[in-house]
């Protein structure tokens, strides 16, 4: 039976964030296309794993100003097959949090 490989997803997402935000400074005009690119690239790579999952990827990018941000999740699913991973990343000017939720389907 299929189980969710959180480490594999973590690495995929971390690379996507690095490639899109790596050298950038927070820019209000670009942040919309950055979050879109991070989630779309992450999804594309996850799909290439070829597993029978539906995926939900969320991304929050915030300017580093000392303000606090908390996030939580609660899932009603099949804990033997479904799973989640959270990637936290930051540079000098911004924070990024990406969540991946993988929901198994029967085929």
């Amino acid at each position, binding site marked *: 039976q299929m189980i969710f490989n959180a480490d594999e997803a973590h690495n995929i997402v971390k690379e996507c964030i690095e490639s899109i935000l790596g050298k950038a400074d927070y820019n209000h005009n670009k942040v919309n296309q950055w979050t879109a690119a991070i989630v779309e690239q992450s999804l594309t790579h996850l*799909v290439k794993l070829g597993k029978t999952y539906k995926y939900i990827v969320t991304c929050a*990018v*915030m*300017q580093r100003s000392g*303000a606090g*941000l*908390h996030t*939580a999740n609660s899932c009603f699913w099949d804990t033997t097959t479904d799973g989640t991973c959270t990637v936290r990343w930051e540079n000098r000017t911004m924070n990024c949090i990406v969540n991946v939720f993988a929901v198994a389907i029967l085929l």
Partner: protein
Amino acid sequence: PPGPRKSFPVAAVDEILRDVLGSSLREQRYEAERCREMVKDIAEVIKARVKELMVPRYKVVVVTHIGQLNEQSMQIGSRCLWDPASDTFSSYVFKNSSLFALAVVYAVYFE
């Protein structure tokens, strides 16, 4: 092709989000420790109330954010790889003078 017999009640979930966020946070000021706990509690309460709707064969993912309202800028987005004929989501943003909160419920049909 077979699909869900009962479609997911998005309007009922919108109402749950508005009710839970509003009643939990209306008078709350941003405090790090309190909000760290509340963000988890709120996710659990929302999940429990969505489960009460008893929609067969749907899996549910609830994501909550609570943040301090300073002068900072932020962007939160998501994308889903799923079946748009059966899968859906609902979201709600709450703000007061001190904090903001976002709650999103994703409903995924177990086909």
